[in-house]
């Protein structure tokens, strides 16, 4: 008696289909990943060495109300990636300040080795623009590093 089907017809119990029940999860995962990683960039971080301070505090302000002004070691000034001269700071900041309903906080992100006269000039420009709330951006310093200095 011949074996039915020549012995080849016995089916394997393992499924030959790729399981696709988690496909929706993977899709959502990717979706959420891209949703949260898409950030509308405000400005590029300039190459500065941050000054350190123990009294560093977080600025409790909305992102939109903080304007970063960069001051590099070479004395270049950047606002929103735009290289500027010191005298251009006031005409640019003044309208932004009034548009923000006087809520604008200016964060001076200066290299720690910049001569102070540039920082002072910057303050004079900001004062002329009417800005009163200024933050000297610093990194938090631990007591241990200070003791070693």
């Amino acid at each position, binding site marked *: 008696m011949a074996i039915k089907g020549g012995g080849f017809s016995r089916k394997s119990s393992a499924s030959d289909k790729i399981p696709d029940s*988690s496909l929706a*999860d993977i899709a959502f995962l990717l979706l*959420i990943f891209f949703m949260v990683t898409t950030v509308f960039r405000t400005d590029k971080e300039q190459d500065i060495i941050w000054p*350190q301070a123990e*009294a560093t505090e977080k600025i409790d302000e909305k992102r939109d109300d903080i304007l970063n002004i960069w001051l590099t070691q070479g004395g270049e000034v950047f606002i929103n990636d735009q290289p500027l001269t010191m005298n251009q700071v006031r005409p640019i900041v003044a309208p932004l300040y009034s548009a923000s309903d006087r809520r604008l906080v200016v964060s001076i992100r200066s290299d720690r080795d910049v001569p102070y006269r540039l920082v002072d000039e910057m303050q004079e420009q900001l004062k002329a623009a009417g800005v009163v709330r200024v933050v000297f951006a610093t990194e938090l*310093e631990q007591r241990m590093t200070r003791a070693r200095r």
Partner: protein
Amino acid sequence: MAVLNKKSKVSDEIPSSSMADIAFLLLIFFLVTTVFPKDKGLAIVLPEPNEDEVDINPKNLMFFLIQPGGVIQVKRGESEQIQTITPDRVEGVWRGDFADNENLIAVVQTHPEAAYRYMIDVLDGLQSAGADKISLQLQEGG
């Protein structure tokens, strides 16, 4: 009777195979939404542009003179005596003097060529000591 014993083919267990996916999803969600904000620093309030100048009794002034090399000199009011201190002593010096005179105003006068970080060191010391009346100035004749 035979009819009632027939078991339903629908599983009564909650499917848990996607639990790992959910966990990863939450993990990734929190990983990417946790931002370490760089919006921090030492806050100060600048004077208004048209603010009137106020005469202050020199006795209520304490000068911190920052020299180009980072040397910090303390001068009290009208006294000509100059004390040289290190940045880590600013906090203690201020606390000591402020305890005697609560109207004390800190005047930080920085030399134009002194590095910004020396000014930050002094401002840090003053803010750590809780000073709220601080004036930032540029040293004249520098």
